């Protein structure tokens, strides 16, 4: 017993070592920085210890803007993308001809580079000296005014941001959900058919509960991923996100470290820890809801 315990630890050692050096130690470090006032990594000096960094960050309008943006993105994109992905997967799994083709089409954005997708969005939405972008041309066709989605009003930018995020995250969800749907044993559907179960009831009472673990997985990872959004914003609005008013929390952390206004690891650490606690809370709530709720009924939302 003792011997095998020792062995187990020995086998785990490399993993523990690496995780320790590259994950745990930095985490602790970040935690410490976040309480050190005016930490300077070059001179390794500190003015003092306390809540100062948190207070600064929480009073920084850029940070508050970033929090607001992040929350809007999370709350809009996670439910919408999951719901849409569910709809599309159900559709996909009920078509027979050309199924593989459709699946590939829907999966393409996933293997396409973020920046390439960003470029396509530029063509679709960006106003330039020569054209207002394809979407604006469409809007004009229907007698609407051109909107500048990239440099225009906040709602337009947020719209395009969410649109983009959903576009980017959907393929993966569709992939997961179509395979989850395909793995539901056909005999359940046959059993339901014998009893003359209406389609909607089959979906809500059989299909949804059966694939609910996958839906929860997608919702939870979706939340986490959306809270960490950053690269998509850069792809659309460039690196100066604060100027565009489209910064996210991770973007704020990055700016504090390396951006033009950078060089403030303490502020960055504090912001990172705030993000961490938000994500942790939401994930815990998510898990609790999953455990408690009858599986399947909390469903897609």
């Amino acid at each position, binding site marked *: 017993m003792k011997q095998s315990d020792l062995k187990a630890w020995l086998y785990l050692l490399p993993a523990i070592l690496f995780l320790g050096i590259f994950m745990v130690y930095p985490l602790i470090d970040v935690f410490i920085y976040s309480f050190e006032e005016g930490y300077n990594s070059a001179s390794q000096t500190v003015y003092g210890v306390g809540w100062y960094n948190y207070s600064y960050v929480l009073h920084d309008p850029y940070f508050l803007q970033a929090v607001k943006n992040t929350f809007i993105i999370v709350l809009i994109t996670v439910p919408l993308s999951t719901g849409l992905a569910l709809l599309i997967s159900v559709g996909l799994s009920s078509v027979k001809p050309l199924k593989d083709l459709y699946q590939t089409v829907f999966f393409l954005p996933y293997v396409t580079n973020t920046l390439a997708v960003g470029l396509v969005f530029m063509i679709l939405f960006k106003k330039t000296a020569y054209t207002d972008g394809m979407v604006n041309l469409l809007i004009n066709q229907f007698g609407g005014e051109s909107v500048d989605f990239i440099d225009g009003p906040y709602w337009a930018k947020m719209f395009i941001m969410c649109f983009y995020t959903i576009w980017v995250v959907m393929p993966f969800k569709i992939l997961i959900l179509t395979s989850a749907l395909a793995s539901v044993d056909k005999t359940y559907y046959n059993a339901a058919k014998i*009893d*003359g179960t209406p389609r909607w009831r089959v979906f809500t*009472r059989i299909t949804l509960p059966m694939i609910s673990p996958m839906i929860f997985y997608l919702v939870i990872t979706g939340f986490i991923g959306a809270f960490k959004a950053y690269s998509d914003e850069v792809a659309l609005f460039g690196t100066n996100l604060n100027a565009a008013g489209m910064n996210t929390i991770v973007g704020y952390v990055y700016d504090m470290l390396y951006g033009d206004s950078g060089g403030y690891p303490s502020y960055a650490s504090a912001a990172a820890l705030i993000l961490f606690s938000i994500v942790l809370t939401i994930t815990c709530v998510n898990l609790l809801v999953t455990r408690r709720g009858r599986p399947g009924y909390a469903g897609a939302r």
Partner: protein
Amino acid sequence: MKVRLEHLTKRFPNSNRKIKTEVTAVDDVTLEIPDGQLAVLLGPSGCGKSTALNLICGLEKPTEGRIYFGDDDVTDLAPENRGVGLVFQNYALYPHMTALQNILFPLQNLKGEAKLSREQMTEKAMEAAKLVQIEELLDRKPGQMSGGQQQRVAIARALVKMPRVLLLDEPLSNLDARLRLQTREELRRIQRETGITTVFVTHDQEEAMSISDMMVVMRKGAVHQTGKPQEIYDEPVDLFVAKFLGTPPINVFEGKVRGGVLTVGADAVMELEDTPDRDVWVGIRPEGFIPDVGGPLRCGLVGVEVMGRDTTVVATHPACAADNLRAIISADTGIGSSAGEVRFALKREKLFLFDKETEERVPFRAR
């Protein structure tokens, strides 16, 4: 409810698209199951039993032929309008619902006229649960029940709407031997109590023999023989049916009829009347052998197995189609063997002749 199948045929397109030929899963099946009887579809794996069942319940549409319940032609009805209950091979209980919810599920689908109040539904569900004796398990989910208990829940779910016809697809195949025996009895009792016409699918001939009022032996989609189990056992129409029924299986020999004498290998075993010369398969049931020092069938003794009541003699014969033949004799009969030879006299009614080519039964009369 009488069930009648007329020239029922089901062909599937070949799953390998390059091969254009179709798979005929059910081939021109015509049969009638009398009201209130338990019929067993019996046959080796892949012979189309499940497909036949799926045709009866409406999950598959026949390529040709008609299906009648009583006088109603149900061929074009959707499954839910046929009034059938189906128990699947793996039960197909919804794993996220409790036993009670599973049993209630079919009732909750009822619409319009047939719609029931909550109390009526619960009452019916309890009735069904009582019939299969699972009242105390109703709050459990399928994962928390044993195979036998799940099977009962599945039967309760199939019975709760009081179907006109109950269909069971190898419902016992997931159970262990003892539970299978027990559940078999149980099933028989439930069927008798409800009087619902039942079609039961299995590839286990013993199960089929013990449970059925009527047996349908199938091979490659076609029905070979229909009848009471004992009748089929006693009077098989062809070699396949003879071989398929009985444990240990029937012993098959190559034989010849020449000048009214049936010979097996070098042994002239029987004199026949009015039988023209022909080559035959000779099938002898294990219980058709009588040890007899002067008997006509001379076999090499391999061994004797005593199992409770019965003694099985394992022997060889040059004309035997298998390596060994098995004869069951009552324990008190000695085999009177000497020097590895054992001789048998044969019981006339346990011996069958089949045509060498068609494998169909050849009638004969012993002199």
